[in-house]
Every structure is written in structure tokens, then in C-alpha cells.
């Protein structure tokens, strides 16, 4: 294992920033969710590399990563269901046009 | 260590020695040896696929009271080679409006997802690619790429039939993945490991098919659905959507899908053997006797494994050519309302009984009888349900007007 921890952390920071850009800059609601997936993956890379570079005997990092998988699945399930439901009512998936809740 | 006891390690040691004699670093020599080994495994798998083309055509012909290919070579054995030549020199048509890159990638991923599985297939106790401790999950992961290739092919073809076929196929594959994973969990629980080699070795005394016959049944049904073969072949229902997701593929690209499907079916036959019929071993302790010690020879084990896999493949073919196609709503309802709950209840029962009965003397008989009892209860419930439904239908049936006044 000749890779320093910093490489993983920098990669995950880069992935997180790219995901953040996707969330902020995309018009389409589905694309925003894609950005969130990238951010969650960045978090997972961090968790697993901290497990590997920290105390290997304690399995916490992997357990946390698994919980993040569950959270990602739940987020996608509800998020996409919401988008499809909104699409049926308003026939749009452009986040800016979804302005029913103005007040 | 002689050639007859441990051929793979012997050959790889020998090759590594040669490479290192040329002045290569030890790591590089090992990687190159591995690459050669991988090529051998993949080419072996492809040779099986070519052989399967002949088997498939010959067997379907017999099922349909025909002779099948019998012109090229003895018993038509060289027919697959003629097929390959034909496929290669056929014109490759890319439909207008297709997404070229994805269109071309789909067949490659489809076949690669099947080839990938062969990295963990335990052909014999000493002949296998790699023995990882998460092999069962690896099998499921390779299947994920199969699903992906279907959706890529269907979407990129720019064809309604292809898209409908892909949607149906993906719906089938993902739905039936749940009972399949649960069916895989059952041998995992009984053997206490996910390594395929250890699962095979755990069945030296008794096959898991006897410990969990219902698990075997679940695995067979869900494997057939994963393959998209009849009765679950509504993804390529000829009468409605012609060929499904690969409708626009011609020549060798179609050939790759076809080879992938056949090899996948055979591989599932092999996994049926690994998980439930002892894999390369499972002679009920016979190999411990001095007279039968030759059963532990890796070459014999490989032959045994291939025969078991071929029998599994034959069962899949048998079902394919005897069953009519079912409708998509029936298929999904069958999975979600029957197979999935059944699978989870079976899983709970297996886990509980495995724990409770393990220290006792009647482990095997207890597991087998509990499975039979469970199957009987399920059948009784189904029978009473269908009786109720029939009574309900008769009560609410509208009287039929006589149409004809001849």
C-alpha cells in the first residue's frame, strides 16, 4: 500500500465539488439527483479510506459506508418518486419551473 | 505436486520459472502467467459456447420432432463453425438514429458480463480462476452488467420494439433478482461462507439439494427468468415485438448476444451444480474409500462438474421448449406476490432451523422434512385461495348470451 491517504481525500474532495456543481448548475431535477449521487460517493470514498488508513480492526468505516448505501437508496427512491409525481401534474422536470410553493 | 494432482499450479510455476529465467521481475512474471491463465479460461468458456450452439439446435430439434443440423460434419458437429463464419461475413447494419457508441458497446458488455462470471467458476478443487470470499455476491454483481447491456441495447437502437423489449427484460431481470439472491443466501447460510470452493466442499457429505429442495426450486425459476428464456421470454416475444431488445442487431453483434445467452444458461446450470449438487465433488463421502480415491483427481472433478452443468442446462432447455410464454403482468405478479414472500419465509425458516438443528442428530432429515412440510402448507393455501377465487368468479359471472340463431 504505497498510496498516501491524501490521494484518496483529494479525489473525494474533487468528486464532491463536481457533484456540488451538478446540484447547483443543472436545470433538470433528475440531473440534480445525479449530482447528489456523486456527492454521496465522495463521502463513501472518505469513509472507506479512513477505515483502511485508521484502525482496521474496528470496522466502523465499512459499517458507515453501508449505511450510506441505504441512505442513497432511500434518497433515490423518494426523490425520483417525487419528480415523477410532479412531472405527472405539471409535465415539467425543470427545477426552476416548480414554483407552486411560493409563499 | 504432480501434473495429475495439481495441473494449474504446476503449469503456472513452470511458466513463471521460464519468465523469470528471461530476467523478468517476479511480479511481472506472475501477472503475465495470470493473463495466460485468463485467456485459457475465457477461450475454454467460448469453446463451450460454440459447442452449446450445436447442443441447443440438436436438442430443440429433438423436442420438436426434427433432426436438427446434420449436414456439416458428423452429426452436424461443425454447424456452429459455419454459423460463426456466416455471422462474421454478414453486413453489419447500424440503424439510422442509433446512438452509435452505446449501440456498439451493448453486445460487448452483454457477453463480457457472462465471461466475467467464469473468473470464479470452480471447475475442480485445483482448477479455477480465483477463489474470492465474496464470490456469491460477485455473481449478482456480474448480473448487474447484463441488465445494463439490455437497457443500453434497447435504448440506443432507436426502435420502439427494442425499447419495449428492453423494458420488459429489465423488469423481469430486476424483479427475479430478489428471489435469486435469497435462493443464493440459503446455501450461504448452510455453508457459512460465500466462497464457491468452500460451498462445494461443504457438500461432500450431503448435497444442499436435500437440505433445501425449495431453495433449489427457487433458484431454478429465478435463474430462468434472469436468462429471459421461456416461459419468461416475453422480452423477445416473436409475435409482438419480433426479437425484443436486440431487434436491430445484425451479424456478429447479434452473435455476441446469442453466445452470451447460451453461455449464461450453461453457467447457471453450473451454479445449480455448485450451490445444490455438490459442484465438482459431492460424492456422499465415496471419495474417502480407497477404491474410489480417483474421484478426487482434478480432471475427474472437472468432468463431473461439466456433466452436472450440462444436466442443469438441459433442464433449462427442457423447460424452455415445453412451456408457453406468460404475460408481463402475470409474470411480475407471480414474482412479487408469490415467489418473493415465499423466498423470504423460506430464508427465515432455513436460518432458524440451521441454528436449532445443527447440534442435533437429525439435522439433515429435519431440514428436508421441514422443507416438504412448508411446500405442503403453501400448496394447501394456494389451493384454498384458488377455490375461493373460482367460487367468486362463478358467483359474479355474467350469463352468456347465445350468439347464434341458426
Amino acid at each position, binding site marked *: 500500500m504505497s498510496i498516501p491517504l491524501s490521494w484518496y481525500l483529494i479525489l473525494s474532495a474533487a468528486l464532491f465539488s463536481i457533484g456540488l456543481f451538478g446540484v447547483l448548475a443543472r436545470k433538470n431535477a433528475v440531473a440534480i439527483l445525479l449530482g447528489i449521487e456523486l456527492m454521496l460517493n465522495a463521502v463513501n470514498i472518505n469513509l472507506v479510506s479512513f477505515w483502511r488508513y485508521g484502525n482496521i480492526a474496528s470496522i466502523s468505516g465499512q459499517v458507515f459506508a453501508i449505511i450510506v448505501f*441505504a441512505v442513497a437508496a432511500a434518497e433515490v427512491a423518494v426523490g425520483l418518486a417525487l419528480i415523477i409525481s410532479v412531472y405527472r401534474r405539471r409535465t415539467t422536470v425543470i427545477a426552476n419551473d416548480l414554483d407552486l410553493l411560493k409563499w | 505436486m504432480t501434473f495429475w494432482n495439481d495441473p494449474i499450479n504446476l503449469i503456472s510455476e513452470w511458466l513463471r520459472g521460464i519468465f523469470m529465467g528471461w530476467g523478468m521481475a517476479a511480479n511481472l512474471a506472475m501477472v503475465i502467467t495470470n493473463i495466460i491463465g485468463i485467456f485459457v479460461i*475465457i477461450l475454454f468458456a467460448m469453446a463451450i459456447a460454440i459447442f452449446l450452439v450445436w447442443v441447443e439446435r440438436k436438442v430443440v430439434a429433438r423436442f420438436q420432432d426434427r433432426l436438427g443440423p446434420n449436414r456439416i460434419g458428423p452429426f452436424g458437429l461443425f454447424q456452429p463453425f459455419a454459423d460463426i463464419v456466416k455471422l462474421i461475413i454478414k453486413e*453489419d447494419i447500424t*440503424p439510422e438514429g442509433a446512438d452509435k457508441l452505446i449501440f456498439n458497446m451493448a453486445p*460487448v458488455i452483454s457477453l463480457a458480463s457472462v465471461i466475467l462470471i467464469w473468473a470464479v467458476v470452480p471447475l475442480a478443487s485445483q482448477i479455477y480462476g480465483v477463489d474470492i470470499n465474496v464470490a456469491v455476491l460477485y455473481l449478482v454483481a456480474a448480473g448487474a452488467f447484463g441488465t445494463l447491456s439490455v437497457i443500453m441495447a434497447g435504448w440506443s437502437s432507436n426502435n420502439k420494439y427494442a425499447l419495449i423489449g428492453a423494458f420488459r427484460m429489465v423488469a423481469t431481470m430486476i424483479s427475479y433478482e430478489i428471489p435469486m439472491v435469497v435462493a443464493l443466501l440459503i446455501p450461504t447460510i448452510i455453508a*457459512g461462507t460465500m466462497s464457491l470452493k468452500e460451498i462445494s466442499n461443504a457438500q461432500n457429505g450431503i448435497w444442499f439439494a436435500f437440505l433445501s429442495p425449495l431453495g433449489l426450486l427457487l433458484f431454478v425459476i429465478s435463474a430462468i427468468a434472469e436468462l429471459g428464456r421461456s416461459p419468461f421470454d416475453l422480452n423477445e416475444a416473436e409475435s409482438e415485438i*419480433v426479437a425484443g431488445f436486440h431487434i436491430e442487431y445484425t451479424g456478429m453483434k447479434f452473435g455476441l448476444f446469442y453466445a452470451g445467452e447460451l453461455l449464461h444458461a450453461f453457467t447457471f446450470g453450473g451454479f445449480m451444480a455448485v450451490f445444490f449438487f455438490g459442484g465438482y465433488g459431492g460424492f456422499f463421502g465415496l471419495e474417502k474409500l480407497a477404491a474410489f480415491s480417483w474421484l478426487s483427481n482434478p480432471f475427474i472433478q472437472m468432468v463431473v462438474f461439466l456433466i452436472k452443468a450440462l444436466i442443469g442446462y438441459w433442464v433449462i432447455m427442457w423447460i424452455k421448449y415445453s412451456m408457453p410464454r406468460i404475460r408481463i403482468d402475470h409474470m411480475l405478479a407471480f414474482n412479487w406476490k408469490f415467489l418473493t414472500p415465499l423466498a423470504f419465509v423460506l430464508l427465515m425458516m432455513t436460518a432458524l432451523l440451521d441454528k436449532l438443528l445443527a447440534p442435533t442428530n437429525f439435522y439433515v432429515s429435519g431440514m428436508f422434512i421441514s422443507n416438504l412440510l412448508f411446500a405442503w402448507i403453501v400448496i394447501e393455501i394456494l389451493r384454498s385461495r384458488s377455490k375461493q377465487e373460482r367460487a367468486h368468479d362463478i358467483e359474479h359471472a355474467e350469463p352468456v348470451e347465445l350468439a347464434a340463431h341458426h
Partner: protein
Amino acid sequence: MQGQWLYIGLFLIIGIIVPIIPLLASRFLAPHKPNPIKQSTYECGIETVGESWVQFKSQYYIFALVFLVFDVETVFLFPWAITLGKLTIFAVIEGIIFILILLAGLSFAWRKGMLEWA
């Protein structure tokens, strides 16, 4: 341990290269004379009407949704399954509670009529 994953990585690369070889052979050997009729979308000879991207039944999506949740949970059961032999009966019951929570979700979907192809 890592050597095994290296092996699988190599297997993946070669497993992708091998199917490409016949495709390349076909590219050199097969004729290539495209024309508009040949390249048109195949719909049994009938002229194509409208876009190929038709609106799909949302029921497919519902099944994918249920699948996603079940897939995640069954994958979680694998570490439980391999350690079961060394654990007490208590751990088995924990796993069963986990599965029962999962089945509650399925029965909810069933009750709601979301498993019907309506």
C-alpha cells in the same frame, strides 16, 4: 487478497477484449454498403410512426422502486448469513426481525394495489 482483485481486474479487461475480436474481424470481412432503406428502423415493414421514444407505463418504475429497496436489504443480509454459524440464536432472531420489517413494506405495497398491473 489484493492479488485476487488484480486478477479479477485483468479478467475484466480481457473479458472485454475477447468479444471485440470477432467484431473487428467482421468489420474487415463483412461488406459495408449502407442505404436508407436498409438503415431504416425495423418494424416488420410498416413505416415508422412517430418517435421511437414512447411514453412508458409508470408501473415499470414502481417495480424498479420496490426492487431497489429489496436489493439493498438482501445485500445487507450477506454479512449476517456468513457469520450465522458462529453466532447465538439471538443474532438469527435479529436477522428475522430485519426481514420482517422488509416484508411489512411488501405487504404495504400489495395492500395499496401497487403490485397490480392496472
